[in-house]
């Protein structure tokens, strides 16, 4: 197995490359929903995979950096409340790592179902509870508008993770060697 030193380097690199991928996905592969500033985000699905492989620190920081950079070059100023919420969701996805054990190469239906329930709840807490409340407190935006944006984002992000995230997780698990797949010859 890898030692502690090399996992910490892997986390640093995964954060950086992950942030670059999230940035590119947010910029080019976003499909608008019709409500301003909310889009079907392919990046959310990738975040699930990043969290499942590299854990909370890498996923949280990667989405924080990627989202901040993207806001910076698209809107001119980062929208901090949503960036922080995105970071927290990344951390939450990272915590699924130990439960999913994707490196072992087995990803059964039970685990997938569990993960999808978990991600819908995480997205709900993030986008419906935290992000709009932050907008109201910090930016003083009208409640109805931010809650509509929040609920739309919750729905599209949950769907994005459910479809793209699940596909990525299953395909990634298939590339890993299964634990215990080698047998001693007698």
């Amino acid at each position: 197995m890898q030692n502690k030193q090399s996992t910490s380097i892997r986390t640093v690199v995964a954060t950086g490359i992950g942030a670059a991928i999230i940035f590119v996905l947010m910029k080019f592969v976003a499909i608008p929903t019709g409500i301003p500033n909310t889009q079907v985000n392919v990046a959310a699905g990738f975040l699930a995979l990043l969290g499942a492989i590299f854990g909370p620190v890498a996923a949280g920081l990667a989405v924080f950096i990627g989202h901040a950079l993207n806001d910076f070059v698209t809107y001119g100023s980062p929208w901090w409340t949503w960036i922080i919420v995105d970071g927290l969701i990344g951390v939450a996805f990272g915590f699924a790592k130990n439960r999913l054990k994707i490196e072992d190469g087995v990803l059964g239906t039970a685990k997938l179902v569990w993960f999808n329930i978990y991600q819908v709840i995480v997205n709900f807490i993030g986008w419906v509870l935290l992000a709009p409340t932050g907008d109201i407190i910090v930016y003083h935006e009208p409640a109805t508008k931010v809650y509509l944006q929040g609920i739309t984002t919750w729905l599209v992000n949950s769907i994005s993770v459910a479809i793209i995230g699940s596909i990525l997780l299953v395909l990634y698990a298939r590339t890993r060697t299964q634990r215990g797949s080698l047998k001693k010859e007698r």
Partner: protein
Amino acid sequence: MQNQLLIGYDNRHTFLNRLSGSTKLLCFVGLSIIGMMTYDTRYLIGVMVFSLIIFHFSKINYRDIKFVVNVIIGFSVLNLVMVYVFAPHYGVTIYGTEHLLLGSSQHYFNLTTEQLFYEFNLLLKYTFAVPLALIFLMTTNPSEFAASLNKIGISYRISYSVAIALRYIPDVQNDYRTISLAQQARGFEMSKKAPFMTRVRGSIQILLPLIFSSLDRIEVISQAMELRRFGKGKKRTWYMAQKFKSNDYLALLCVLVIILIGIGLFKVNGGRFWNPFN
């Protein structure tokens, strides 16, 4: 798509280029936080004028940023319309008075001076940081940016992650474009003309090769870094780091004064809003 490329750094030989990255980062973050908090119109206009003056000195061509500016204006207008549709009386709630311009107070959609004023404040808040952000992006060398992050107290591992992200964004973009063209050549339609589900399926077809090749890249880079003993020391020096000069202290002082004025205005106004209707 070509237009959307990162707006780039270029050494334009102005005093802004010579300021250290840490100074610019601190100034930008400080100003954007105070601008995020305050709803004082006079202050926001002041900061906006200040940033436009600085922008004038930065010798950035309007042509280079036209596209970005248009996108920003488009999104701001959309947001303002949406705020009006969902909360046409929000200004009245905030400022406590009602001066009707159009319609009567019984109707859901009426226009009050307070609402207009509130939305004007919102517009200022959406846009005031844009010139500063553009200056920051276009006058700071990306490699120096990571060094500046480390200098203002962020752990060097995180700074290095940011450096890697900035370094690899163009590579990932290139990969993305290559894979996208290859898939389109195989018949996957991904442009705006295609129906929604086709677009989703198309983007998954790009996503898979992009992500799996990037995961390999993570392994390669982390092994290379381990061979070079990354992370063995407590500290790290940066080739691109700049020392603070007198100009840096001067700039920081200016921004500090502006921020203090903003904080002072909270006291004067008795809250975050400036109410001209009393």
